[in-house]
């Protein structure tokens, strides 16, 4: 493998990491409150607002069922508004974030709904406010599940990021298509796939490890 190829792979890996890290970060900041709200605003729940909950649910589902490549193109005006341009690695962060936010929100909602209802009752019984219940009971108890959900979201983002080559986003996926496929360089394709596999393995292993350390539900060996 030529030094030039290695340089290309390194640069693309950097772009992928940059896009995934920034979009995962922003999507977590947005998805976390959204997920918490979805999990606590149903009928009879802490912040009961069944209609808002239902409307948000529909919006989240719509965003999640739109194929990512269509989403990228469809929100180009929005991307231009936020990033100033619709082309390039930084611009690609916008659709990645838009796709990941509802996904993360649903994962966090799921993790929080796993928390035993008895804990909410106990916290209400000793005088906790709804916000105290969220931050002192629900989030800490759901943390292992939240970490696993975020791990899944990052792995998915690594996959999604391969598609933003379509708008000049760069990254490993783009490299694989342009060199490996269009220029008939199977060794480049292989190298890209190997790097992606290694990335995903690292993310998943770290996530699993962290979730296990946070989970006090099972006896520590």
């Amino acid at each position, binding site marked *: 493998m030529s030094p030039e190829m290695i340089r290309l792979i390194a640069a693309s890996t950097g772009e992928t990491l940059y896009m995934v890290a920034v979009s995962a970060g922003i999507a977590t900041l947005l998805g976390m409150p959204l997920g918490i709200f979805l999990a606590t605003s149903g009928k009879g729940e802490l912040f009961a607002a069944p209609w808002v909950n239902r409307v948000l649910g529909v919006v989240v589902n719509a965003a999640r069922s739109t194929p990512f490549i269509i989403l990228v193109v469809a929100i180009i005006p929005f991307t231009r508004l936020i990033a100033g341009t619709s082309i390039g690695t930084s611009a690609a962060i916008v659709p990645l974030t838009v796709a990941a936010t509802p996904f993360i929100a649903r994962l966090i909602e799921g993790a929080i709904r796993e928390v*035993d209802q*008895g*804990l909410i*009752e*106990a*916290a*209400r*019984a*000793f*005088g*906790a*406010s709804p916000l*105290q219940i969220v931050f*002192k*009971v629900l989030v*800490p*108890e759901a*943390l292992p599940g939240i970490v696993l959900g975020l791990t899944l979201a990052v792995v998915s983002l690594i996959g999604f990021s391969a598609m933003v080559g379509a708008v000049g986003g760069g990254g490993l996926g783009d490299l694989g298509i342009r060199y490996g496929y269009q220029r008939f360089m199977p060794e480049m394709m292989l190298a890209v796939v190997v790097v992606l596999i290694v990335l995903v393995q690292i993310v998943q292993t770290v996530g699993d490890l962290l979730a296990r350390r*946070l989970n*006090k*539900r*099972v*006896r*520590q060996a």
Partner: protein
Amino acid sequence: MNAPLGHIGDQPHQRLVAAEPIVRLDKISKIFAGRDGQAVTALQKIDLAVPQGSVLGIIGRSGAGKSTLIRLVNGLEKPTNGRVIVDGADIAALPEAELRHARRSIGMIFQHFNLLSSRTAAENIALPLEVAGYDKAAIRTRVNELLSLVGLADKRNRYPSELSGGQKQRVGIARALATNPKVLLSDEATSALDPETTRSILDLLARINAELGLTIILITHEMAVIRSIARDVAVIEGGRIVEQGDVFDVFTRPQHEVTRSFLADETGRALPPYVANRLGPEPERGGQAVIRIGFRGPHATDPVLARLARDLNVEANILAGSVDEIAGRPCGTLVIGVPEASLATTLDFLKQYGLDTEVLGHVA
């Protein structure tokens, strides 16, 4: 903020005679909107007064409404009609913020403990204090006091998954006591525990009641729980209180069918099968009448059968029986068979001694 443990117990006797009960339910009814819009009546016409420092046991079958009833006391449920007065405040009418404040003086423990798995024993106990805004030093002192009160000082840094059921419930009790409540609500707190652990948890609750003067309201489906710590009992069935009173009275002279069926499992009340199977409603020629005799208080240990034989010359067959202690007072049950011919005189004789009698039936 950080009152010593003895705070409430300093003047228990004054409190005991106080006229106003600490918890009072006034003409409570609770109607739920069930599925397909049909209203479900969970509670109706409930009146209940719990004096300061007492232990009230509420017993009922599952679905009788006892869970709803106990949740009214700390406002986890709101009554459809009626008032819930706790320590002078109308719980059902308080705005949310004041209700949260009022809940600090009403502790609650649960069947499944409801501890946070992500917090250690000490951190679980600290949670109500954090929520109430205590400072770190005060929390540390209070948590240490509570850990020794419940006998878990050496388990402070264990997570709930590393504790036994009884230890978890001790953490639950310590957490419920953290903010110095005046009332402790116990929602089937021993139902998930084995008999021996149940014993130790009930002993702890009795000790807390005696030492801290804390009023305890507990719901259960086990008469054994009531008899070991409650002084008063209310029997609930179909959303109504069907019988209530002093535990000793209710246990020795149950009036309602439901109470009797709960007591049937108690020692000495159930007839042995060889008697029960032969029992008929009509007297038989040359047969025997089966009488249950209840001995209460001072008469519990009277040699009544010997007197029956000596004074009336009636020879009684002992079919079943036991002598026991309920709420600290002796009581006994004896099931005997006497010849039909001497039934009337026997009953008169027993009544003279102030004993409760009940003719259960007749055997050939």
